[in-house]
């Protein structure tokens, strides 16, 4: 029951972040960090197995990509991934991230084929993360 409530809380918070991301292309830092700390504490209390290895691998890879090509991805996405990982574990984060990348890939192809946007324009990634989380949770 508590895990289900945790998942619902995660989806609601992702909905809010997706909305702010679509609206302004930016995400508030402090609420995301606070939420990830809260999720982490609840996880320790419940005893969910956070697969630390896969969790740190993804965050580390994203940070490397961010520092190599920091104009390509935003720090907000890394913070959101951190929040999802601290909520439901590293393996879940891995699944969510891969699915969201696949969906974003298809969306990017659609944008390019129908010439809606150019290749260097920025698209919000939080909605894809939210969609993938909903897909993985249910």
């Amino acid at each position, binding site marked *: 029951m508590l895990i289900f409530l945790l998942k619902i809380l995660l989806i609601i918070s992702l909905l809010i*972040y997706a909305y702010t*991301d679509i609206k*302004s*292309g*930016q*995400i*508030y*830092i*402090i*609420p995301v960090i606070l939420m990830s700390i809260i999720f982490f504490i609840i996880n320790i209390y419940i005893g969910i197995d956070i697969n630390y*290895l896969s969790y740190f*691998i993804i965050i580390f*890879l994203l940070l490397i*990509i961010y520092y190599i*090509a920091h*104009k*390509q*991805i*935003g*720090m*907000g*996405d890394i*913070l*959101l991934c951190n929040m999802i990982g601290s909520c439901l574990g590293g*393996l879940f984060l*891995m*699944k969510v*991230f*891969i*699915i969201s*990348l*696949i969906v*974003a*890939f298809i*969306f*990017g192809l659609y*944008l*390019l084929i129908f010439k809606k*946007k*150019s*290749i*260097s*324009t*920025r*698209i*919000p*990634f*939080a909605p894809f993360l939210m969609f993938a989380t909903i897909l993985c949770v249910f």
Partner: protein
Amino acid sequence: MFYKIIDKKVNAGFTVEAVFIIPFILAVIFIVLTALFYLHDEIIVITVLNKGVVNCETKENIEASLEKRLWMLQEIDVTENNNKLYRKVNIYTKGEAPLPLINMIVDRFLYIDKSRCVLNIRPEDMQKREKKSESEKEKDE
């Protein structure tokens, strides 16, 4: 002051270019990492098996040392077969790498199945036994 701290924002979003490039980079990295973990576990299984068989370690000891050292393959099944002549140990480990789409290239369920057989008696004794059995056969004839 408090409002300023709360109001801090960061960019969130991928460029369309990154959306195309990053999945391929990550897929390659995940495949390489999975292969590395698998190889690590395979080497651990082989060393533990060899040590366990030669030093006559118990099944529980082998399982405990595997549980400590394996990274990816978590299901461990050790079977041993002790005879007067030989001692045979078989280690079967199984693990899961649930990576959507990447599982088309790398199997979702990975396993290692290794066995090692060691003679329980010295080679000289083995020769004596063989000679004995041959002489007995000759006598029977």
